[in-house]
């Protein structure tokens, strides 16, 4: 298992740095291009929530990514010192029509659809969001 920890200022223009790190982690785990991209997307959404809704325009803080890769699996943890916010619960599916499509909540939807597990805990004054993604193994032919 490999472990990487990357700390960035909690700013929107720093999210890409963490996405690159997630891509590297997913590559080590053996994920294909599209799964790696999906993982980047999910982490990007989580980070955007931290910056925009957690810290907001008036607060300063950092985001720490702890990323672990093992064959076929990645475990990610995002830590921040913003006020408590738990995105591990999937927002209720709001029915929408083509005339009234969804505008909000897309980020959380994406995060939950991509990741196999999303959990949260508050510890030592930090939000800690954990996400896990596993490779889907193709069934063996008889």
């Amino acid at each position, binding site marked *: 298992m490999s472990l990487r920890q990357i700390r960035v200022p909690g700013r929107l223009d720093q999210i890409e740095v963490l996405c690159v790190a997630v891509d590297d982690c997913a590559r080590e785990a053996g994920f294909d291009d599209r799964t790696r991209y*999906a993982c980047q997307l999910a982490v990007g959404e989580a980070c*955007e929530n931290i910056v925009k809704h957690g810290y907001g325009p008036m607060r300063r803080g950092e985001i720490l990514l702890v990323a672990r890769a093992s064959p076929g699996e990645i475990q990610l943890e995002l830590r921040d010192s913003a006020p408590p916010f738990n995105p591990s619960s999937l927002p209720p599916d709001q029915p929408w029509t083509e005339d009234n499509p969804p505008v909000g909540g897309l980020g959380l939807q*994406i995060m939950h659809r991509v990741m196999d597990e999303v959990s949260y805990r508050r510890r030592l004054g930090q939000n800690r969001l954990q996400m896990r993604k596993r490779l889907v193994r193709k069934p063996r032919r008889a």
Partner: protein
Amino acid sequence: MEEGMELNAHEYKRATILGVVGRVDSATWSELDSALQAIIDQGQKHIILDLAGVEFLSSSGLRVLVTTMKELRKVGGEMVLAAASDRASDSINIAGLDVLFRSFPSREEAIASF
């Protein structure tokens, strides 16, 4: 690391094509929004969004696509997608928004649809 985002617009009689290259995310979405709004402000009701060069499309970018589509539909118009990259398509599909947009493999086919 790649640079942000580039946009290029081409006006045709039937529609205006806006090509997007690079990352559409929380740092760049407002540029895309402004460009689309400028096209609408010029009176164009049909927009083709060429996503061939999109390397990253986050929910911020998806929100722009949705709000633009809503605005165009109010005036009897539409925005369609052309040549979407795998990454752009994946973002749209993961978000469940694929049912909202007509999508074509090329600009030419998108133009012909209007």
